[in-house]
């Protein structure tokens, strides 16, 4: 009955099928095959990545819950816990940008509140093809409004993120969304169906034929047949999700819930089997009781539907009535559809017939793990060789061009569409290195950031992974925050290709090494493979989401200059490095060379020094040096000051001027301090053995940079500001 075509349609190999037959002791029926197919998909089963993900450090003093649950949980003291996780929604966002991105937000929000936390912030990492192509603009417009449409309505602030453009994303945009939630430490909930005899309750939206096989879609490469995958897209209902949030949190606070899991990828299938497997129990459900939006749905469709805004809850029978009352108060359905059993099996009834009967362990825990072959791609050595570029004649012009590069230009066009202030906690709004959220009633605060540099990772995946961690932590350090936990989204091509697997393995090892060095545990994340269309993979794109803790929110510096006449200090040192820079890419169209060198030990010291200076109350402005180099970082400090204060900087490093201005040497932070405090900061740096010097002063209406006695940059702040500010909006201006 199950032929090769059916297997291929389910993305299962003959070997995997044989394993299924062995595990359940007979041939599966089609519905059971569907269940294995989604649960053993790359998206749910992590079959190509599992062996490598083990390399991440996952323990640490703050960790309450590491990988394996819906989200990671960190203890931040005062009886509070932070719950956070990142998720990709790449393929759906290409097919239907608005709904794809919107439901991506919806999914990650549920991951957070299913654990008992109230979502307090969202961050988004977006990657598109270049904006001169109208198709890319349409995708970006749709994605941004989808995120805004869902998050704003739900009432969670979208406080930060990143946007990056490169042709490799034209057919495969990336939409990664990270959510941060806050919970009481002693009121966390897990996805466990404990206690045989307990009721299994279905809550939330009705089930329709939405997104059937979304998970397998996320686990396959796009070919020419993309058209027929289209119906998989789901429509989100943020209003319903908001009600679901309030109802769930209320039921949790009233202690009515034993275990709970959202129905995300693979819907009922995933939530029933996982909850039972984790608790070592079984489950029996009756599909006739599942609220349905459409008529004539088959067990296959009901089990695999990915309709949004649904939850599966396990509760003690005597609490069911009160639970229902709460959901009804919030105008939501909550119905008992089955019960927990102790036989370790998932038994599903439909029209009085037993249509599924399989061991949950087989589905959840026995998915094969592959150690896929890895091979260093031939191109790596070739692209890492770089001839030094010719020195441009007009550096001011190059500077302006860089400021207007969409990768560097102001992203306000994006975050202005996001409600980034709802919940009245956002103390540092988008536009700074990291977002800062106050915790009402407390002095401590949270900082958060998303970071990744795919070009670096493409050129050298191991170092790219390390730099992503280093840069994210550096962003936190600029807010005075110490990193406490990591989540990550690994966006890669087809893992069945050894070259992709090599990139993946290298990047993971780089990230793991850096996390170990910074002593921060990885508490969760997401792997998105098969980001290829027509055989062309994206650049390997790891995105790191890191949470930091701030002792005293009143000492957080701003990202822009605060006043004229302050000393500008550079922590770290300038080196002659061109590889992987935006400068090379934009001006010379070269995506080549080695990414900047990184010493994790030095990086850590620079960050620690920055943090200590901030804690001592000495720092007025802090900003790290990243894409675009030192000149761009200084310009951003000018642009982000409310009065657009200029600067004059004098440098004497014996390196090429263009490398000094635009090279992306790591481990550098710009500080602005009151003149009288400059000495104190330098002393602190000397004690910590961190290179530091005063390089100039804030003030005036111009950006001036001198190199060894020669003025090399001389530009009105306003001119640079306009180029930086208008670049992205100009692409979207409607031509009348």
């Amino acid at each position: 009955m199950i032929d090769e075509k059916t297997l291929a349609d389910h993305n299962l190999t003959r070997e995997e099928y044989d394993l299924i037959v062995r595990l359940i002791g007979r041939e599966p029926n089609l519905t059971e095959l569907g269940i294995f197919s989604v649960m053993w998909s790359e998206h749910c089963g992590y079959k190509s990545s599992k062996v490598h993900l083990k390399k991440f450090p996952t323990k640490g003093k703050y960790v309450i819950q590491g990988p394996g649950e819906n989200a990671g949980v960190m203890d931040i003291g005062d009886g509070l816990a932070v719950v956070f996780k990142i998720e990709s929604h790449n393929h759906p966002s290409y097919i239907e940008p608005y709904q794809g991105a919107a439901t991506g937000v919806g999914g990650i929000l549920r991951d957070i509140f299913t654990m008992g936390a109230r979502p307090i912030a969202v961050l988004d990492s977006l990657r598109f093809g270049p904006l001169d192509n109208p198709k890319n603009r349409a995708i970006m417009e749709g994605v941004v409004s989808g995120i805004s449409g869902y998050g704003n309505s739900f009432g969670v602030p979208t406080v930060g993120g990143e946007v990056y453009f490169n042709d490799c994303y034209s057919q495969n945009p990336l939409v990664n969304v990270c959510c941060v939630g806050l919970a009481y430490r002693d009121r966390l909930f897990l996805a466990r169906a404990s206690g045989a005899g307990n009721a299994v309750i279905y809550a939330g939206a009705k089930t329709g034929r939405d997104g059937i096989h979304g998970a397998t879609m996320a686990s396959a490469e796009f070919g020419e047949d993309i058209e027929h995958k289209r119906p998989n897209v789901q429509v989100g209902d943020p209003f319903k999700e908001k009600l679901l949030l309030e109802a769930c949190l209320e039921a949790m606070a009233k202690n009515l819930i034993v275990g709970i899991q959202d129905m995300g990828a693979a819907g009922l299938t995933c939530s029933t089997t996982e909850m039972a497997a984790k608790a070592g129990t079984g489950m029996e459900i009756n599909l006739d009781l599942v609220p349905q939006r459409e008529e004539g749905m088959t067990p296959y469709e009901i089990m695999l539907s990915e309709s949004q805004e649904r939850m599966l809850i396990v509760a003690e029978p005597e609490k069911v009535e009160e639970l229902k009352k709460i959901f009804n108060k919030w105008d939501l359905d909550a119905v008992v559809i089955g019960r927990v059993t102790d036989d370790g099996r998932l038994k599903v009834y439909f029209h009085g017939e037993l249509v599924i009967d399989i061991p949950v362990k087989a589905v959840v825990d026995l998915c094969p793990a592959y150690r896929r072959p890895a091979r260093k791609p031939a191109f790596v050595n070739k692209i890492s060789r770089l001839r030094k570029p010719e020195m441009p004649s007009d550096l001011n012009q190059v500077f302006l061009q860089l400021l207007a590069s969409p990768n560097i230009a102001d992203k306000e066009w994006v975050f202005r569409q996001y409600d980034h202030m709802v919940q009245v906690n956002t103390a540092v709004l988008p536009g700074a290195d990291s977002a800062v959220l106050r915790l009402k009633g407390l002095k401590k605060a949270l900082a958060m950031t998303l970071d990744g540099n795919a070009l670096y990772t493409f050129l050298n995946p191991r170092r790219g992974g390390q730099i992503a961690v280093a840069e994210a932590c550096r962003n936190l350090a600029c807010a005075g925050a110490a990193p406490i936990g990591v989540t990550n989204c690994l966006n890669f091509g087809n893992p069945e290709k050894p070259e992709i697997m090599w990139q993946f393995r290298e990047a993971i090892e780089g990230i793991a090494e850096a996390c170990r060095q910074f002593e921060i545990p990885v508490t969760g994340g997401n792997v998105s493979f098969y980001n290829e269309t027509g055989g062309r993979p994206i650049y390997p794109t790891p995105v790191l989401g890191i949470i930091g803790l701030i002792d005293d929110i009143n000492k957080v510096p701003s990202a822009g200059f605060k006043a004229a006449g302050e000393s500008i200090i550079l922590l770290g040192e300038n080196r002659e490095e061109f590889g992987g820079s935006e400068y090379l890419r934009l001006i010379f169209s070269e995506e080549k060379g080695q990414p900047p060198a990184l010493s994790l030990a030095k990086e850590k010291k620079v960050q620690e020094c920055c943090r200590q200076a901030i804690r001592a109350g000495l720092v007025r402005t802090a900003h790290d040096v990243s894409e675009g180099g030192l000149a761009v970082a200084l310009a951003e400090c000018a642009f982000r000051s409310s009065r657009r204060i200029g600067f004059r900087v004098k440098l004497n490093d014996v390196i090429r001027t263009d490398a000094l201005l635009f090279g992306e040497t790591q481990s550098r932070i710009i500080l602005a301090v009151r003149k009288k405090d400059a000495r104190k900061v330098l002393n602190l740096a000397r004690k910590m053995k961190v290179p530091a010097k005063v390089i100039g002063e804030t003030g005036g209406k111009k950006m001036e940079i001198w190199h060894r006695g020669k003025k090399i940059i001389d530009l009105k702040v306003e001119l640079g500001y306009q180029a930086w500010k208008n670049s992205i909006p100009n692409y979207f201006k409607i031509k009348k």
Partner: protein
Amino acid sequence: MKVRILVTLKESVLDPQGQTVRNALHTLGYHQVRDVRQGKVFEIELEGSSREEAEKIVPEIADRVLANPIIEKFTWEILEA
């Protein structure tokens, strides 16, 4: 020439807006209302177009710009020739 294009969600696609309107109507006592689907309407004025031209470009416009064929469908008609 004036044409009208109606864009609505495909039957099987969730329509949260329509559902909310239906619920509101029930609350107001309009229990006869069994189902509501909400969509968009575009009224387009075409300059000096013939019927043949309209028949060529209107579906094209609807498909490329006004509707997202993945989740929406459209119908159209000529209001004034």
